[in-house]
């Protein structure tokens, strides 16, 4: 049995301008110890999907209106409040783009980690503090005993994100959800954090869901990738297959638009047009106004995710 099985997840946003299907029938599974990247551009529903895993979506305006999220055999969507509290920060932990939003500015880093440990592992004060220092050491913070007594603002951006990772992993979660964990960091610091996440995953065997818009970060860290466009998964495959043999026209367009470090082309290739406004999605395949391989059926029916001959799953009429 998979650690996490998401089936036909639907999250709707009820806005003054109308209904927005932010997540519209997303399904995927994640085995224990594996990593999945969810990649897509702004507004594609990747963050909503991630928040739904812990039922953290802002209600209102958003609401889970359908589907199930089986974590360890239990459905997060219907879970009672007490079990949900144990799940959040216990079995599933989350790190965000901006570490300052996760850390309480008036508590020391060590206090915050120890607090989480006491809450979920019922350790005593001394044990919890020791665990905090141990975790800070694990994430590569030099002089962890001193940093444990420091306040968040006394740390640099990179150190803060390490502390947040330490806090997230302190209770031995089975799943870590990382939402753009390196986007706010400088390139050289980003490289450090990615290296750290990779090492920790190897050492601790935590499953990871990585949410990002950056294909470079995806290539760096995960085993599998789900590409989202306008609330739907359009392609789901192993990371190497995605980069070597992308199938969906959107995936191919996305990969093509990234300028290469190696070579210099005269013009960058682009995906024409923009994502349609959320309340004015086209019928059929949502990518059809921007797609170069559009067929008549693309305007009528939504393509289902089907398994292709290279093992990928993609939702495109031109492929099936």
């Amino acid at each position, binding site marked *: 049995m998979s650690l996490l099985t998401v089936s036909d997840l639907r999250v709707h946003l009820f806005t003054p301008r109308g209904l927005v299907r932010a997540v519209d029938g997303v399904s995927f599974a994640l085995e224990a110890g594996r990593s999945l990247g969810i990649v897509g*551009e*702004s507004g594609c529903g990747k963050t909503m999907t991630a928040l739904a895993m812990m039922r953290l979506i802002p209600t209102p305006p958003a609401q889970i209106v359908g589907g199930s999220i089986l974590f360890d055999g239990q459905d997060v969507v219907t879970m009672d409040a007490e079990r949900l509290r144990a799940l959040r920060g216990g079995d599933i932990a989350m790190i965000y783009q901006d570490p300052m939003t996760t850390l309480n500015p008036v508590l020391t880093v060590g206090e915050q980690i120890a607090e989480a440990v006491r809450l979920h592992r019922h350790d005593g004060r001394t044990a919890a503090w020791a665990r905090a220092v141990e975790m800070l050491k694990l994430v590569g913070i030099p002089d962890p005993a001193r940093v444990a007594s420091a306040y968040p603002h006394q740390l*640099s*951006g*990179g*150190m803060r994100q390490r502390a947040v990772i330490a806090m997230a992993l302190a209770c031995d979660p089975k799943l870590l959800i990382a939402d753009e964990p390196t986007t706010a960091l*400088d*390139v*050289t*610091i*980003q*490289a*450090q954090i*990615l*290296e750290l996440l*990779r090492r920790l995953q190897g050492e601790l065997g935590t499953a990871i869901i990585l949410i990002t*818009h*950056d*294909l*470079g*970060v*995806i*290539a*760096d860290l995960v085993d599998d990738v789900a590409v989202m466009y306008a609330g739907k998964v359009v392609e789901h495959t192993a*990371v*190497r297959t995605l*980069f070597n043999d992308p199938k969906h026209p959107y995936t191919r*367009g*996305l*990969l093509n*638009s*990234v*300028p*290469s*470090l190696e070579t*210099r*082309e005269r*013009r*960058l*290739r*682009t*995906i024409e047009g*923009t*994502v349609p406004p959320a309340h004015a999605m086209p019928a059929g395949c949502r990518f059809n106004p921007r797609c170069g391989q559009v067929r008549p059926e693309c305007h009528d029916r939504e393509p289902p995710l089907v398994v292709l001959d290279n093992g990928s799953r993609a939702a495109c009429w031109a492929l099936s």
Partner: protein
Amino acid sequence: MTAPLLSVRDLRKHFPITGGPLGVRTVGQVKAVDGVSFDVAPGETLALVGESGCGKSTTGRMLLRLTEPTSGQIQFDGVDLLGLGRTEMRLRRREMQIVFQDPYASLSPRQRVEDIIAEPLDVNGLYDTPAARRDRVIDLLRLVGLDAIHLRRHPFEFSGGQRQRIAIARALAPQPRLIVADEPVSALDVSIQSQVVNLMQDLQEQFGIAYVFISHDLAVVRHIAHRVAVMYLGRLVEMATTDELFGAPHHPYAQALLSAAPVPDPDRRRTRIVLTGDVPSPSKAPSGCHFHPRCPIAQAVCREQAPPLTEVSPGHVAACHFGKPFPIPTGG
């Protein structure tokens, strides 16, 4: 090389750190930009790259005197900009424009697109009749891939990419010879990013505009820039043509920066230089070579003396005590 359009010499910006009981006493200085020199030829793109706090944005702002330099020289088309009075500087400004990172904040939310784009025309009296003004704005909209139907709309009705096109149209309006672009595509989605980069290149070809392109995204820089200057904590550490810099980076920081950039290729995972330590705050810049605490090849001399920019090959300068590129151990 032809005579440079822009010539910057020993440009500095030192911000005072105030302290004391009244908060008015100067207790120190942040050397945000500390002696930067470079030239930009007409129609050329020079990229300024580096991480946060390296002074690249401050440098860009000083070129237009949006931030007043502490010292140094900026010659634009042979005229010393820092010697100009307020009125003269204002007249010069139409030849140098700026595009900002955040397309949401760089357009006034209360104005219509027509008035936003026409602002430089209005201010400089660059048209005779209202009809001429409108025609010019429509031309500009078409140049950036928008349409006359957008004239009467407000910025919030546009997506990020479209707003950045509007900002570019505004910058183009007074027919500038130089545009400072401060992270112009960083806030945009990948597929939109490439559209805007293409647009900027097309405009350069068409009008011969020079760009000072400020960015932390090396892949974009690789694509758009003719030459690249790498900054670290207020100083230039390396400058060369784009091919030269990406092909044979000299300074250890430039090497590390290039190697740290995430590449969309899962097979390249474990071959990069991972620097230890953080970028220090510019208020606590290390002695000697600013990079020495993080440098994998630092020696005693690096702690004491700041290395000067020296030519390592024609047109390629670097500021490192070691005369040749050093093999740096890769991580992983």
